[in-house]
């Protein structure tokens, strides 16, 4: 093992994404900056049995990317995680040889795990009256199935762990992966997450929490309204985002294009209530990331907010930002891209990290769409409805908070090549 006394810089060199607003970086970038919504009526056989009929689905056909033999052994979550990992490795131009394999690992995040496989098993047993389950049920349903499939794809020997902290899962995975590299345990990590929870049972369970958005009467695609006074809740989404993280030395030695540096990561816990966020918990998360980056609050120019669109989250997050940033809260910009791509739960943090990296390099802040009615309690600059060009972006942040309490904030720094 290399010396732990020296802290390595960690950079992002590759990203892969499947999202409700586009697969691949060019499509995602175009849609996110243009303020396009990926939310619509759910395309599913059971939609008539739902109270909440809207969702943010990703267009992803596994048959286009894998052999039938390969994809039939993987839950949709794993298919998404594996595909975006392959895309991220390609984007990084990374050759994974025998020397690298022991120095490269996977940290993966997912909230609900393999929802489709688990539910299919229950339907078979309880509804169809079957006496047994398919042989792959355990292997497809286990929460570490995606990370395992990714490791097998590249025969990686480095650490392979799955984080499940609900909506912050993949942000935690990225932050913890960065720490592994920082402290010299690995040189390269694949980090991010996937979520595919748009099943009948899972949506019903979310309906019962009374936290899902009402369908906008005029236009279903406008149903998610973070920071707007008329917001009614979150919209469930599916997709995945994976990133290649490397030590700065490793990336520069191979001449990689550096997309951004992970300048700071912080995680803290809300300890007040299982669903109600607290200003103190969220502020502690943001402060932890600033401390880790050794940055003053006024260095941060943009925050990609957790911004779910629930009444409580958006006020709490606004107040947490004010608590940490003081007056500077009114000088930075905050936006919730969930207004476009919905809430990808375990994959949300990774998708929003990718969007934040794209924003950093394009010097353009993605908007919060559907922000039509100002809320007196949400009085920051939320980049309403239209992307904003902000030359000389240098430090940006992305927040993830979660049911259960685990928060994660990542600070990204532009690296000029």
């Amino acid at each position: 093992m290399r010396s732990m006394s020296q802290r390595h810089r960690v950079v992002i060199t590759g990203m892969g994404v499947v999202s409700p607003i586009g697969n691949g970086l060019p499509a995602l970038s175009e849609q996110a900056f243009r303020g396009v919504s990926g939310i619509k009526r759910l395309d599913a056989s059971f939609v008539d049995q739902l109270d909440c009929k809207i969702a943010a689905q990703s267009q992803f056909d596994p048959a286009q990317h894998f052999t039938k033999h390969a994809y039939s052994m993987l839950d949709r979550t794993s298919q998404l995680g594996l595909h975006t990992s392959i895309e991220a490795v390609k984007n990084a131009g990374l050759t994974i040889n025998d020397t690298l394999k022991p120095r490269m690992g996977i940290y993966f995040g997912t909230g609900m795990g393999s929802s489709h496989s688990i539910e299919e098993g229950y339907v078979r047993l309880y509804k169809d009256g079957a006496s047994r389950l398919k042989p792959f049920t355990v292997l497809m349903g286990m929460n570490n199935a995606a990370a395992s499939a990714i490791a097998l794809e590249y025969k990686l020997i480095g650490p392979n762990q799955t984080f499940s902290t609900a909506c912050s899962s993949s942000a935690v995975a990225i932050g913890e992966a960065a720490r592994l590299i920082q402290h010299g345990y690995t040189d390269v990590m694949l980090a991010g997450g996937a979520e595919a929870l748009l099943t009948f049972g899972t949506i019903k369970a979310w309906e019962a929490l009374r936290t899902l958005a009402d369908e906008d009467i005029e236009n279903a695609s406008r149903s998610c309204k973070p920071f707007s006074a008329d917001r009614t809740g979150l919209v469930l989404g599916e997709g995945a985002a994976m990133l290649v993280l490397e030590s700065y030395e490793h990336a520069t030695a191979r001449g990689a294009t550096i997309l951004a540096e992970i300048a700071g990561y912080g995680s803290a816990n809300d300890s007040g209530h299982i669903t109600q966020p607290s200003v103190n918990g969220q502020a502690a998360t943001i402060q932890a990331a600033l401390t880790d980056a050794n940055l003053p609050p006024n260095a941060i120019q943009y925050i990609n907010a957790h911004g779910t669109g629930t009444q409580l989250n958006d006020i709490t997050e606004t107040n947490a930002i004010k608590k940490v940033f003081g007056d500077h809260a009114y000088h930075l910009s905050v936006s919730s891209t969930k207004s476009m791509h919905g809430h990808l739960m375990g994959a949300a943090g990774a998708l929003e990290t990718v969007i934040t990296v794209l924003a950093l390099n394009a010097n353009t802040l993605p908007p919060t769409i559907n922000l039509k009615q100002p809320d007196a309690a949400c009085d920051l600059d939320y980049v309403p409805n239209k992307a904003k060009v902000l030359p000389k972006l240098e430090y940006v942040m992305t927040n993830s908070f979660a049911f259960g309490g685990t928060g994660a904030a990542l600070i990204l720094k532009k690296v000029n090549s």
Partner: protein
Amino acid sequence: MSVPSLDEISKVLAKMIADKMEIDVNTITAESNLTELGLDSLDTFDLIFNAEDHFKIKVPNDQVQIETLQDVTALVHKLIVAQSS
């Protein structure tokens, strides 16, 4: 229920293997070794699972040691005979 012939069983199983592995069914013979066709132990369990569904039989755990298509065909035939009598 009438008991299907070995040939009929073999054809059904060959098609299951061809569909699963995305290979040409005509390349599969009775002597084909399942490992050489690309099936690992889990794929073999899956094949047996599908055969159980299709032929309405139950394969006991101690009888899943099979190597060739011929072995699976014989096993399935034996169980259909035993379980239909």
